[in-house]
């Protein structure tokens, strides 16, 4: 089937306004009489609050309002799954980002000064910084329910019997870092008090309607009185899925009835914002000598920080993806999602899959070496096929792209020429290597969760369509994909489509921009609503043109007779619909397919639909310094039919570099509950000079349930590249990386410990 827009590299519909500086982000907004807000946050990672004194702040010149916990009219808490994080703390703080008071003042300077004048009396409590220590008997309890937020245990087959059948068993321990999203626009925005008593909150976000709900709950207001606008958002990656500033903004506007701006500094964003879960992973994997996997035992300890947010679902996905895209008959998969007094961990692109993929794909690489088998062949031998039972005992009924992706990577220039590429090292002390890894990534929210979408489709009198789907545009390009799919479905010119996302007034609730779900959800919502609207257009046009309805066809600017030259423009059809009393608006709903029941021992599992990706990396390790440079990466995402190849490449390019940062440099380091690196001088992000050459090879296995066959791409593109790089480091220098990030210092130490330094190898004093 050929399409006019779907599958074409249509330039982004929002590119021009972003290229000219015309796009107004929520932190760019200003209103007359606007106040500036600051948050007084905790001074301790864990303490009881004995007293809060805001008297000096209240009288500071320019201060309009100082709010503390009694000023929260409704429920003093938020959190996507369990609302256990206080809006404003009353008697206890559990991490340094906890908010205690809010100040609004005439100027930012006055608000800052006043916030500094707030004094809090504390009684410090012991600080828990390691999830394993937090589980020990006698450990201080961070929440009333204990320190275990969620425990998962999934068993299939008989894992000990499986190990009994194995010819080779390897056992390793892995550690992954607390990666930060590092969106360029920090959390912030403006709230205004509306004349009807309501509040409008303009703040970057990944789920406008859930923000509306959480704000309404805290303010004790009807959600209909809360409007949330979050488009465009300057990057999200999962870090704007949860509330950070929105309730504080609304609360201040509610109390002052004036516009209020709150915009976190980079340091405050690090302190209060969400991170990726640091995980400690124990893996024991058994294989037959022909390379067939027979058993996998995994135990995960995840540091979820002080509050729940999406920690439970994230760690469920760690369990669900712990075995990679492979058939393994005997498994025991256990996880502990544990509260600590560290920064909060929650949603982050990959959502628990990055950690286990690093571990599992390293296991696979070790097995391949020990078996003397080609690492690609080992993966192909075990890869899931459609109809297989996966290791959790769930049948993979939807499209499975593991083998197509692996096969395509095997045909890439880099893989075929890897021996020659390795020999091209520029200097005698530099060593090159090539590594491979593969992954799958569940799409959607999983079993037992409300996973729905909807689209508002409206033909305007001027002959353009409004398409309102609430999943916010956080940069991934869903707006453009929606325009393409709407133009394709409504059979009109794409210039006639206006897409609205991230606005509770202009778009139907379609859930979050997360879980690789926005294109799939929005596309299916368009497909669900368009036929009804088109029927009405057809009816109006038939009367207008004096032709039977089945003799009409759509053309880019309207409808026309199939066998006559008579035509009506969309403007004319809209007018006729009004005359006939036919509504020009349709609101559709769409429900995700979901498993009938959850997998025992793992809430939310399984997802039904999965995207796949294989990545290979060519690295060069400087054995004098330990520095690794990633020279080339090839990505082969299998994400169903591609709606926009340019968009897919962009996602894959960016995902590869984000996964590279995870492998080599990124970690928010905490000691005793305090952040050690709170800015971009100390939290090192990949720059243009670090970025490898990157090639995307598309493999399209059409997904029957997807809009035009599409699945979600946003997350899987950043996942396997991390172990592809660390496996390449092993290939280059023979050092096995089990803890990331493998910085130059870490690599140098490992080279020294293994006597692999070019000058014979003594560890220097550091």
């Amino acid at each position, binding site marked *: 089937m050929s399409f006019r827009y779907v599958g074409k590299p249509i*330039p982004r519909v929002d590119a021009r306004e972003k290229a*000219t*500086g015309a796009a107004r982000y929520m932190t760019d907004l*200003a209103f007359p009489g606007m106040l500036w807000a600051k948050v007084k946050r905790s001074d301790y990672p864990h303490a009881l609050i004995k007293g809060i004194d805001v008297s000096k702040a209240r009288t500071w010149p320019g201060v309009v309002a100082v709010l503390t916990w009694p000023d929260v009219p409704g429920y003093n808490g938020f959190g996507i799954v369990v609302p256990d994080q206080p809006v404003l703390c009353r008697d206890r703080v559990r991490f340094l980002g906890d908010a205690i008071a809010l100040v609004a003042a005439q100027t930012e300077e006055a608000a800052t000064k006043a916030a500094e004048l707030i004094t809090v009396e504390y009684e410090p409590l012991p600080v828990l910084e390691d999830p394993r220590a937090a589980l020990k008997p006698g450990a201080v309890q961070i929440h009333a329910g204990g320190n275990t937020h969620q425990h998962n245990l999934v068993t299939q087959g008989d894992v000990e019997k499986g190990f009994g059948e194995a010819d080779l068993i390897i056992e390793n321990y892995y550690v992954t870092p607390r990666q930060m999203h590092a969106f360029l*626009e920090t959390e912030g925005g403006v709230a205004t008090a509306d004349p009807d008593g309501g509040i409008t909150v303009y703040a970057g976000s990944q789920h406008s309607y859930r923000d509306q709900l959480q704000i309404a709950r805290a303010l004790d207001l009807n959600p209909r009185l809360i409007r949330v606008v979050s488009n465009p958002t300057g990057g999200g990656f999962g870090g704007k899925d949860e509330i950070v500033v929105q309730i504080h903004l609304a609360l201040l506007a509610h109390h002052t009835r004036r516009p209020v701006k709150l915009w976190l500094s980079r340091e405050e964003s690090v302190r209060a914002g969400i991170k990726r879960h640091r995980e400690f992973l124990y893996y024991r994997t058994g294989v037959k000598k022909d390379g067939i996997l027979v058993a996998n035992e995994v135990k995960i300890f995840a540091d979820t920080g002080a509050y729940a947010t999406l920690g439970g679902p994230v760690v469920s996905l760690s369990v669900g993806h712990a075995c990679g895209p492979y058939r393994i008959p005997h498994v025991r998969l256990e996880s502990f999602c544990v509260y600590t007094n560290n920064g909060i961990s929650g949603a982050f692109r990959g959502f628990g899959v990055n950690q286990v993929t690093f571990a599992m794909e390293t296991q696979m690489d070790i097995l391949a070496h020990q078996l003397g088998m080609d690492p690609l062949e080992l993966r192909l031998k075990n890869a899931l096929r459609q109809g297989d039972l996966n290791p959790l005992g769930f049948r993979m009924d939807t499209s499975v792209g593991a083998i197509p992706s692996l096969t395509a990577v095997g045909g890439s220039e880099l893989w075929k020429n890897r021996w020659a590429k390795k020999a091209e090292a520029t200097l005698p002390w530099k060593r090159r290597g090539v590594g491979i890894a593969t992954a799958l990534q569940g799409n959607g929210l999983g079993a037992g969760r409300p996973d729905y979408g909807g689209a508002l489709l409206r033909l305007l009198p001027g002959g353009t369509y409004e398409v309102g789907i609430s999943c916010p545009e956080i940069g991934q390009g869903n707006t453009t994909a929606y325009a393409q799919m709407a133009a394709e479905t409504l059979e009109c010119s794409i210039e006639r489509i206006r897409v609205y996302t991230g606005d509770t007034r202009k778009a139907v609730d379609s859930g979050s921009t997360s879980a690789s779900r926005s294109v799939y959800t929005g596309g299916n919502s368009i497909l669900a609503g368009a036929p009804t609207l088109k029927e009405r257009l057809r009816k109006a046009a038939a009367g207008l043109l004096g032709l039977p309805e089945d003799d009409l066809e759509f053309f880019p600017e309207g409808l026309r007779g199939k066998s006559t030259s008579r035509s009506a423009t969309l403007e004319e059809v809209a007018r006729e619909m009004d005359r006939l009393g036919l509504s020009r608006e349709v609101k559709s709903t769409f429900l995700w397919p979901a498993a009938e029941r959850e997998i025992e021992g793992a809430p939310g599992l399984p997802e039904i639909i999965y995207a796949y990706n294989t990545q290979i990396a060519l690295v060069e390790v400087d054995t004098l310094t330990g520095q690794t440079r990633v020279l080339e990466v090839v990505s082969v995402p299998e994400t169903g039919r591609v709606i926009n190849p340019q968009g897919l490449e962009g996602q894959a390019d960016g995902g590869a570099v*984000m996964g590279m940062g995870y492998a080599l440099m990124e970690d928010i380091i905490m000691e005793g509950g305090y952040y050690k690196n709170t800015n*971009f001088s100390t939290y090192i992000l990949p720059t243009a*000079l670090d970025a490898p050459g990157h090639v995307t090879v598309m493999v399209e296995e059409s997904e029957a349930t997807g809009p035009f066959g599409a699945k979600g791409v946003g997350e899987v593109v950043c996942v396997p590249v991390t172990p592809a790089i660390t496996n390449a480091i092993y290939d280059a220098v023979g050092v096995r990386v089990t803890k990331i990030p493998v910085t130059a210092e870490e690599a140098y130490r490992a080279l020294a410990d293994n006597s692999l330094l070019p000058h014979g190898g003594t560890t220097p004093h550091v």
Partner: protein
Amino acid sequence: MNLVEVEFTLNGERQKVIVPPRTTLLEVIREHLGLTGTKKGCGKGECGACTVLLDGEAVLACLTLISQAEGHAVTTIEGLAKGEQLDPLQEAFIEEGAIQCGYCTPGMILSAKALLRKNPSPTQEEIKTAIAGNLCRCTGYVKIIKAVQKAGRRSAEVAAHD
């Protein structure tokens, strides 16, 4: 309060502001003059989002005190297009898909503009060096580098044609 009076041109128009001396060029552009195309990502010269041109050179507006702009010409992203006619860099960024969330885009384009002004046909390494101070979390830089190369070629063609 101690105030300074500073005159400079912004996107070709004369501006005069009277502000406390510690005010940065970024604050003046965004807060006082309301041009929000110039972004703030860190406020400390670590991310490049606030890059503007000062007499054609890329500078970080968050680290530039307003007095340093006295008598100089400041160009922000809003001043790059000539009416509806976009700068070749803006066109190339749109065509190549070099924009995702777009928050780094203005600073990225202006760093590239400063490069192309001096070096219309930069190598890939020269482009990477020129934009090394501009962080982007979405694109992996791949399409940005391609866009700068394309804009360079196009500018050279236009120049040859003139």
